[in-house]
């Protein structure tokens, strides 16, 4: 039980994507212009990640090593198609908003990265916990980032105006530059507080997590 909780909770802070585990940046940047979009994308990722973790974990023993990645991709892609269909049926406006980024969930490093790094080595229950935790962490981050950019860029949160009169929204925050800069600064803050904590414990400061394509494990697994 404690193991299950450990695998679940690590995604919520210790390995929080995309801040601690700098993976899957495209949707993080692209769909976080509002909190709602971020939340929606997060939910889609939870769905795909949890199920793909489960499925990968189930079939992990029968898949030959050489086509491992190809199989993971097919599984992830099938789930993404399912999400596409379900979204079209039940959340059409969101589907329109997220646009091309829904099919692109399949190439989100988080999905393949977790499949390769975790699900392919662990039993189904743990894989679900991991997927759910990571997915929720991802959703949290995306919603937070989206909320921040929505407030700064539009003066709204979840579509409701939340700022005082006379607040001039910084429209670039809602556009691409704002996405990059906000994420960069949040990452820096994260590093700052981590080092502050370490300092209090008397440890030497460390550099923050670097974004490294290798860390998704897809090509590193070769």
């Amino acid at each position, binding site marked *: 039980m404690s193991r299950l909780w450990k695998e679940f909770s690590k995604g919520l802070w210790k390995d929080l994507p995309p801040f601690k585990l700098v993976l899957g940046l495209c949707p993080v940047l692209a769909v976080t212009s509002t909190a709602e979009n971020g939340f929606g994308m997060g939910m889609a990722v939870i769905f795909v990640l949890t199920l793909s973790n489960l499925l990968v974990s189930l079939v992990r023993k029968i898949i030959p090593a050489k*086509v491992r990645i*190809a199989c993971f991709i*097919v599984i992830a892609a099938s789930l993404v198609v399912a999400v596409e269909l379900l979204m079209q049926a039940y959340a059409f406006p969101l589907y329109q908003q997220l646009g091309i980024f829904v099919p692109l969930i399949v190439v989100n490093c988080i999905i393949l990265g977790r499949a390769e790094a975790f699900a392919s080595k662990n039993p189904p229950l743990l894989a679900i916990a991991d997927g759910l935790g990571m997915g929720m962490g991802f959703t949290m981050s995306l919603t937070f980032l989206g909320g921040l950019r929505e407030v700064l860029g539009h003066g709204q949160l979840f579509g409701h105006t939340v700022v005082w009169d006379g607040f001039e929204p910084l429209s670039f925050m809602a556009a691409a530059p704002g996405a990059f800069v906000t994420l960069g600064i949040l990452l820096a803050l994260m590093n700052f507080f981590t080092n502050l904590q370490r300092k209090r414990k008397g440890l*030497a400061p460390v550099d923050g997590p670097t974004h490294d394509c*290798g860390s998704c494990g897809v090509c590193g697994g*070769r």
Partner: protein
Amino acid sequence: MITTSGLTLFGLGLGAAAILAVASKLLYVKEDPRIAQVEDLLPGVNCGGCGYPGCAGAATAIAAGKANPSVCVVADLEAMAAIAELMGQTIEEREPEIAFRDCTGGERAEERFAYSGIMDCQAAAMLHGGAKSCPEGCLGFGTCVAVCPFDAIHMGPEKLPVVDPNECRACGKCVEACPRGVISIVGITSRLLHLNEVTDCLAPCRQQCPGQIDIPRYIEQIKAGDYEGAVNTIRERNPLLMVCGRVCPRPCESVCRRGHVDSPVGINMLKRFVADRELHSGNRLPIPCAKETGHKVAVIGGGPAGLSCAYFLRRLGHNPTIFEAMPALGGQLRYGIPEYRLPKKDLDWEIQGILDLGVDIHLKRKFGRDYDLNTLKEDGFEAVFLGLGAWQASGMYAEGEDLEGVLGGIEFLTAHALGQTIDIGRKVIVVGGGNTAIDCARTCVRLGAEVTMLYRRTRAEMPANPEEIVGAEEEGVQFKFLAAPTRVIGDENGKATHLEFRMMKLGEPDDSGRRRPEPIEGSETLMETDFIIPAIGQKPDLSCLYDETVEKCPVETTRWQTIVADPDTLQTVVPGVFTAGDVFTGPDLVIAAVGDGRKAARSIHYYLQREGDIPIPPMVQRELIPYTLFKEVPGVQHSERANMPHMCHGDDRNCTFAEVEGALSEPEALTEANRCLHCGLTCYDRDMELPWKNEQELR
């Protein structure tokens, strides 16, 4: 639709898998499976310190055998061992490399303009080359500290970066970041091979020393109590520190900036202090050598040049063999310098230290008689070093100098060192004013003779070390200045009885800057004597190069009987044959022979490693760099230079060959080290003409 969909995707999957399967068969490229395994073992830092593009590149190179398993600068021994095991190799210990800062200036350099830009060396360097007036030294903003990924550099109290050797992995980031080239990553090999360049931070003493010893550094180390470090620093340039600590005439002290204030720092006393400390400590400091290269080099002549060359060749990983004609190694050190200045047992100790590195010796083997270049080649020697020395005493050009009772200075000393008894009688005349002459004189004093020295100029012009002259005076040697021998008069047995000399006066200065002595006609005088030692000069004895008919060694020679060689590479006209020392320069200092021995070893190293291509750095320092030699040094407190202690007095001194001068005590040495102004290049120059001076006025 369900069926179509299922079938389509099934088909797609089948197609893709089939194509890939076929392709992987058809397009199969055999790849070393060890690459992946090695890569797994590497730390994956991708720092590039190994010189390969990332860990994957390094893994490929290791698997291909192009790199050593220990190439990674970050991996610990365990990982290296695992990689080596995988590759079926043993790890060759990597030469330790760390970042090395070569500037002693720090914040002391003058500011040329007020700089208030970004506190970053590169930014500062972009603005008129930086605010510091020193054009080579550290700017002190610590960009190297900021870029070091291992936290191995911090700013010291003098605003100079200090490298922590335990943390440094020699990744090279700091070198890249430094706009002044103050930091370099050097392993022992490249340090040994480095020649002074004008862009180095060279204090005057370091420019002047023929051995290019990093004097400011070892003085700094002595100051910090790191005596072993100081010994190691000296040994990077001079394996004969104990010898030089005793006999060096100290060209470095002649340019010491402290000399403009009071008197120069006793650099050589400090060298002797640390050298004697090691000598008397009972154990030798380990001397690291590069890994074996398997190249065999013949070093002909076991004098200072040959010893130095063999020592550096050995440290560079080659296998030198010394061929010596005399019964023991040391050359002029053993046979030209008397015991009271350089005790033989101490010399033996120092030479043994060099031999212990793995240098082979063949004694009593004379070049031209027992072997020549061809036989050396047949024996597998790939390069030859000729360090034959200068063993022939020059004559006085005076009538009757071949009479009995006349013996050249160096011949006299050699005979004495070999233990032969020479009948010198009671009254001895030594002709000449160099160290050899004084050595002869003082040796004769110890043999119980009354000695007069004849020198054709005045005391001020004597080339001998001043304290040697004082020593000779103290021991009772009489001086006859402005006197030149003209004739030796012998008795009926052909034995010299008198020396006729003529008085001289000083005329116009000659090329050497000394005033030329001119004879005073009619001033001939006779002086009674039993033994005459002309110690006027020496020249190489090149007879061994020639046989009656055949040339044994086709090197070119000059009319001064020296061997011709490229002054930069020291390679003679015969490829693979190098020379240095007195046989190349004519009689010169021990430290010059040692320095050229290193230079020759460097050339031989490149000759062996690069198939004859010996690189010459473009900025190599050939003469003193004028703008670093200013004379004004304001704001320095006067302090007395230490005196060399004497270890024996009175009869002990005059009648035995016991060593006369001693070493400084530790407190004295520390005081002396503290007198050093640790010159950077221009750190003290407050009035230097700078090219940008006008530019500033314009603004």
